[in-house]
Every structure is written in structure tokens, then in C-alpha cells.
């Protein structure tokens, strides 16, 4: 583990996109949450929540929310972290199977899902909040994700690898390996799931290489949304995105949403075994600020709709979210 500390220093000191994702271990903190609200939420009188919302905003303002000047004017990493869907044929099932990656990211689809407009409004509110907190502008996210599995006789057990092509920056691609969730007493106590993740940038013929090595395409997805990259105690990436499946092989312009109206919010930060605690604290503390809109939960464990969400969103939308933050 001797290499890990200097390595992290490299991350801290370098602003080249590659460094962040050359990490050998990334902790994957997930903010499961779905912006999907029942119709009665829409009808809830905003006024009854106004006090709470203002309280939240006051609380939000109690700590400097911006990472402005925290890293000598650097621009944090551009790379994008995204969760994934193992089987697009069963989109909205929050099945917590060990092998599946994305399913646990979804909360159960609430009955009587609200209109798209409402959800879009909450997404917009979250983006305003994130922009205020992070002090960086959002980046558009459009990522083609390919899920490969090893062929029948390759490896003692089947292995999976993901190839991500950021369509905003088609090269390099990203190769990603996601391990199983960490277990144990420590893992039980925190409200997030921690997974080992390894990423590597690679030239765009990486799909051809993996095909040559005996891997097969299992399924593919298009993730569309926005991403925020910033430093706040750790290098944090937040993505807010929807997941779409392709109607034909690699047809990225011909997609349908897998989970209509549902957005996945993901908070990711790289860490090593040495700085895990600090990074976990940084992520938890950052997520506190999002509390008016969404709560941390383990994948598959629904927190339900955050009671203050509608009011907080309305409040954020009304003033653009900038001033008090």
C-alpha cells in the first residue's frame, strides 16, 4: 500500500483528467434517488413547507458552499462516473442482486408517479443547488456504455467489464471494473454502499481489443444528463442522469428511456484505503447539503420522497439558487 499515498498526492496536485481515473481504487458512494413524485405532492400547499425550506437555505448558507479558490483556480477532473443497468429488459425493478450493478441504484418506482414536468423541475432545482454548492458549471453528460462479459470458457468465473464512450469527448474511452459491495460492520453503519472501482482511460479501439480477447457485448445504454466535478474535501463527481436503451445495436440516436421520468443521482469520489475515512466524511458532509431535495440511501433501500423536496425545489427555482448560497 506504499504507493497509494503518493498517488493520492498526485491526484491532489494534478489537474489532468487522466489522473483522477487512474486511481486503482475508487470508492463509489451512491446517492440513490429518484425524482419521481406522486400527484399529491404536487398539490401539497407550498406555503406549509416554506418555513422549512427557508430554514434549509439558511443552514445551507452557514458553511461556505463554493470550492472557489480551493485548488488555486484549477479545473477539476472532467471524467464522468456513471452507474449502470445490467439488464435493460427489466428496467424499473429494484432488485438487489449481488451481480447487478444498476438495479440497486433505483428506488422502487413510486405508485402514481407524478408528471414529467414536476420531476424535471426538481432536477433543475438540484442542478441549481449543485451549481451553487460546487461553484462550477455543469457539464453535459452523454455517455454510451457498453457492458461486456467474458465468453463461456474464458476465466474460471464469468467476468464483466464496462466500456464507456463519452460522446461529448469521443476519445479516450474509459474501461471500468466495478467490484462487489464492501461488507462488514463498518459498511453496515454508513448509509451508502461502497464498491471498489477501477478505471482506466483507453484508446477508442478498446472495444475491438476486448472482442479479440473473447468478451461479448451483453447490453448497452445511453446515459444523458449533467455532471459536476469539484473539490470539496475530496474530488467529488456528481451526476444527474437518465438511462436510455438503444433500439438497434449501437444506435445512439435511436433510444428510448429505460425508466421514464427517473433520474439517477450519483456521487462518486476516488479514495485509497489510507484516506478512505476522510473521503467518506467529505462525501457524507457534501450530501448533507442535498438533504432538502434527496437523502442518502443504500441501493434498493427507498428513502421515499423527501418531505421538503417540493418546497426546497420551489425555493431554489424562485431565486435561481445563487444568492443565499
Amino acid at each position, binding site marked *: 500500500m506504499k504507493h497509494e499515498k503518493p498517488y493520492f498526492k498526485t491526484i491532489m496536485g494534478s489537474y489532468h483528467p487522466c489522473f483522477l*481515473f487512474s486511481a486503482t481504487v475508487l470508492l463509489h458512494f451512491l446517492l440513490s434517488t429518484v425524482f419521481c413524485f406522486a400527484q399529491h405532492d404536487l398539490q401539497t400547499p407550498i406555503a406549509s413547507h416554506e418555513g422549512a425550506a427557508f430554514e434549509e437555505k439558511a443552514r445551507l448558507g452557514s458553511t461556505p458552499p463554493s470550492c472557489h479558490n480551493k485548488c488555486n483556480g484549477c479545473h477539476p477532473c472532467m471524467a464522468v462516473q456513471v452507474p449502470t443497468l445490467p439488464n435493460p429488459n427489466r428496467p424499473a425493478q429494484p432488485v438487489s442482486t449481488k451481480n447487478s450493478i444498476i438495479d440497486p441504484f433505483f428506488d422502487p418506482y413510486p405508485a402514481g408517479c407524478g408528471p414529467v414536468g414536476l420531476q424535471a423541475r426538481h432536477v433543475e432545482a438540484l442542478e441549481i443547488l449543485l451549481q451553487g454548492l460546487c461553484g462550477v458549471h455543469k457539464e453535459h453528460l452523454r455517455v454510451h456504455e457498453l457492458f461486456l462479459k467474458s465468453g463461456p*470458457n*474464458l*476465466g474460471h468465473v464469468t*467476468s464483466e467489464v464496462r466500456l464507456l464512450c463519452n460522446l461529448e469527448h469521443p476519445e479516450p474511452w474509459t474501461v471500468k*471494473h466495478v467490484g462487489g459491495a464492501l461488507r462488514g460492520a463498518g459498511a453496515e453503519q454508513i448509509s451508502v454502499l461502497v464498491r471498489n472501482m477501477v478505471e*482506466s482511460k*483507453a484508446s477508442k479501439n478498446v472495444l475491438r481489443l476486448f472482442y479479440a480477447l473473447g468478451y461479448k457485448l451483453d447490453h448497452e445504454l445511453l446515459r444523458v444528463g449533467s455532471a459536476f466535478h469539484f473539490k470539496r474535501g475530496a474530488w467529488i463527481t456528481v451526476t444527474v442522469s437518465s438511462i436510455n436503451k438503444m433500439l438497434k445495436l449501437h444506435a445512439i440516436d435511436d433510444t428510448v428511456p429505460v425508466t421514464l421520468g427517473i433520474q439517477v443521482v450519483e456521487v462518486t469520489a476516488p479514495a485509497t484505503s489510507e484516506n478512505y475515512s476522510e473521503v467518506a466524511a467529505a462525501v457524507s458532509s457534501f450530501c448533507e447539503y442535498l438533504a432538502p431535495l434527496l437523502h442518502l440511501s443504500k441501493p434498493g433501500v427507498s428513502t421515499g420522497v423527501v418531505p421538503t423536496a417540493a418546497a426546497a425545489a420551489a425555493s431554489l427555482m424562485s431565486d435561481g439558487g445563487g444568492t443565499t448560497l
Partner: protein
Amino acid sequence: MPLKWVLHWQPNAGTTVNTQILNEVTQCVESINGVKEGRWKATLTFYKPILRDQSQAPELPRDFLGISLPEQPNKYYFIIRGQRIVLEADSSIQTIMEKLQSYKSRVALYFEGFQYQLGDFQLRVGKVTPTHSDNLRGIIMEVEYLPLSSMDKSRQVMEEFVDIWQEAISKRSLPGHFMHMEPNFVEFGLSDHYSSQHTAVQYATVMAQLIATQSVQAARN
């Protein structure tokens, strides 16, 4: 980046490479006023598929190589020569390969030696040894021409330099010669503009040649 040619020592029929030849080559570089600059080291790894059922041999590449180069310490290169694939990735790709448990590294070789500056040229001369022993398996030489990046534009100057070098080394009456085999980079999807991927492909080509030479010698013995 500046282009380079990677040459390897081709022993005469019936002879093998030895440290005496390596010493002579090193002295020869110094005799033509090469200024020693420091050490360099590249590592080449052969990967072999892990098969669940050994009796079934699927069509998987048998020439899957990974290379790390001193000029790009944060990068790693994969090459499948048979299918003309070269991939550049972050060095963390090696961790991903370990986690996937579908291929394991079978043999690894070091290419290591000294670096010399000679006008606009940078030379690297080194030995090829397995990572776990000192058995000399070959001698390698990189000739880098610092002012140019175009393979085509530099061809003439490179040929002239290599001619001068061959002449200098031939005076020592060693049992072999340096050989340059230029891969067809276009087949690997590489352009005329030189990159580290070109170097990786050259190393893979040299490796194939070293294996072929040693196989012939083993058969002869």
C-alpha cells in the same frame, strides 16, 4: 513526439547472444561519442487466457502482449499482433486485467540499459532478460531522432544514421548484426505521426523476432 526505430541484435546462424557482445555494442556507442545520460527500462508481459475447460481451445489470441515504456510511465500498451491491435491505456488497466481474471501474465521480460545522446539522436542500448533471472535473451537498441515526428520525412536521415552505425559495429567483427524490421503501422491504424503506440508495436515485432530466432536455435540444438 520524436520518432524512433527499434533494432535488435540478430546473431549469426549457430551463435547466440552473450554479454560480451553487449559490452562491445556499448563501447561502440561510446566510441562514436555517444554521451551517457542514464538508465532506461521497459517491461514486456505475455498474457495467456485462463480457460475453464482446457480441452476446449477457443480462438483466443496467443500473442497478447502488454508493454510499459519509460517515456510514458503512466501508460500501458496492449498489443495483439495477429489481429493488428495496439491499445494505449492508463497503467491502471493492468489492475483491471488482474481483477477480470480472464488472462494471466505468463512471462515478463525487461528491456534495460543505458541511454546516450549523440547530436540530434538519442540512443538506447539494452539487454533483454526475463524478470526473474539474468539470462540474456537479446540485445535491443532504440534510435530516436529528436527533431522529427514524421516517419516518412525522417526515413532518409534514419537510414543514413543506421548505415553509419552498422559500419561502426562491423569493425568489431561480432557474430551478428543489428536488424531493423519496420512493422506496417497503417495496419495497426497508426498514422505517419509517431507516437508511443508505434514504439509498442515495434517492441512486439522485435519480441516476435527474438522468439522466432530462439526457437530456430533451440530446434537446431
